């Protein structure tokens, strides 16, 4: 079974600061692997371990700053995957979900023979939760989201989907795109050995021109602004003395 997991480099949200005009300053934000993508990589690796397939491949698209960053490449490859395929171009910064899915589809087609694509629930930054569903339709594969368990059943997969009020158990014929939930597994934390080994794994980075793709977009981002901050009283008592707790209880009673 040839398995691909999709990963995205996203800015560390703790390092995003807000400028006086409410726009975001991402210049100090280091890139990291999207937190929800870690579950996709883990699901791909666990399935590979269960089926004895080859190590899963990673596919990522973005800017050269992200994809040619060796620290980030190691962060991607130190979690059990065998190789990384990237599509890097400056024009790929903040493209919409359809453009992202189109390029991923082109890359997956170019890799060839892929049986299963695993996506996270959503990207760590934009989190529209749409790339997996769009990708499945573009590739013409079986296409499911909210996948909370994947079990190999011969040539097929048994998949559990956790919905709002019910759970579905489905038999899926490959090829498929599965978008997994954030609680499908607990992603492994790589050790020093894995991080060192990741430096030796094969990496292929294509430019936008290397793929047959159209990434036209009819969605325009008008603005991205920090929301107005609510004024809060910020009356903070230091220390858990009985007097302080009584005062907190008094304040709390006023709003009950």
């Amino acid at each position: 079974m040839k398995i691909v997991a999709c990963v995205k480099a996203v800015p560390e949200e703790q390092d995003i600061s807000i400028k006086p005009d409410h726009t975001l300053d991402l210049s100090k934000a280091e890139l990291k692997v999207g937190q929800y993508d870690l579950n996709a990589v883990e699901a791909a690796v666990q399935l590979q371990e269960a089926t004895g397939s080859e190590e899963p491949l990673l596919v990522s698209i973005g800017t050269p700053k992200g994809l040619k960053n060796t620290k980030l490449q190691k962060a991607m490859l130190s979690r059990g995957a065998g190789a990384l395929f990237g599509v890097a171009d400056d024009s790929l910064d903040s493209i919409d979900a359809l453009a992202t899915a189109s390029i991923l589809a082109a890359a997956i087609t170019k890799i060839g023979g892929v049986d299963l694509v695993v996506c996270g629930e959503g990207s760590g930054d934009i989190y529209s939760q749409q790339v997996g569903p769009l990708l499945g339709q573009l590739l013409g594969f079986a296409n499911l989201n909210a996948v909370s368990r994947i079990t190999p059943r011969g040539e097929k997969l048994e998949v559990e989907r956790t919905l709002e009020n019910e759970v579905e158990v489905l038999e899926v014929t490959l090829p498929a795109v599965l978008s997994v939930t954030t609680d499908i597994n607990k992603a492994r934390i790589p050790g020093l050995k894995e991080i060192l080994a990741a430096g030796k794994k094969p990496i292929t980075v294509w430019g936008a021109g290397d793929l047959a793709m159209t990434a036209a977009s009819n969605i325009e981002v008008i603005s991205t602004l920090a929301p107005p901050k609510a004024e809060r009283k910020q009356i903070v008592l230091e220390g858990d003395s009985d007097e302080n707790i009584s005062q907190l209880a008094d304040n709390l009673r006023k709003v009950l």
Partner: protein
Amino acid sequence: MSKLAKVFVFAEHVDAMRELAQGAAQLGETTALIWAGDKSQAGGTDTVYYLGELSNERILEHYAPTIINLIKTEQPSLVLVESSRKGRLMAGIIAAAMGTSVLADAAQITVDNGVVTQRMVYGGAALSTERSTAPTTVATVSAGIFEATDTGKAANLVEVPFIAPAPTVKCLERKIKAGESVNLRAAKRIVAVGRGFTSPEELQLAEQLAAAIGAEVGCTRPIAEEEKWMDKARYIGVSGVMAKPELYIGIGISGQVQHMVGVSSARTIIAINSDKNAMIFNQCDYGIVGDLKTVLPALTAKLSK
């Protein structure tokens, strides 16, 4: 605000159907609902396109080719989609088939030289305003942005002929989800727990406080998804429940934006944390720096009097 010619609604739950039907009426000259399942529940729009029953043999996803064909034929200007999990999947399928992207999780939606939506990005740190000029725009819509309408209006019902999908997904079983049903979105008071709790037993301290003041208990993502000490339905934040309580008490919670955005509209925010540098103290009305094992029992006792 100018109106769009034709607005479609795709929903799987009745509550969302009622809200989105109202949204469609506000945004469009004519409205239609795409519906599967119990036919008697469908309504609220000028037309209902009825797909058929839902069963193990035919789950909603099996209607995808039928829905795509309907949308390609009818060419609505906008499809409002319920932001349930199945809704999100269908939004992506419809959008890809129509060659457009999805305006995801719209918290506000207007018509202004296209369809303009506002949504949260970067874990709630920012609001993004986006405009779609696609011939057919697809938007998933957050719950509660339109008032639900009475769906009593008699609609023109059209039975849509079924187009069989590729036989790649077979439903073996559907079961009611185990676990508790709790609706934190509707809770007026929330006591929330975070990483400051070191064992599941300690959660009782928060539960006792919640019981004393008639609050629901919520938690941060790690408590639900990593520790699994609480049901996922209790997890507050950008990828969990977006709550609207009047009172929120955060205990042992650092105050990261991804969590706080889920309660940011609370009238009063109270913080209890042993770390005086915790970010939550900059975002609270009242706070106390102290050990939750000391503060909680004492506070519960005082409030129970």
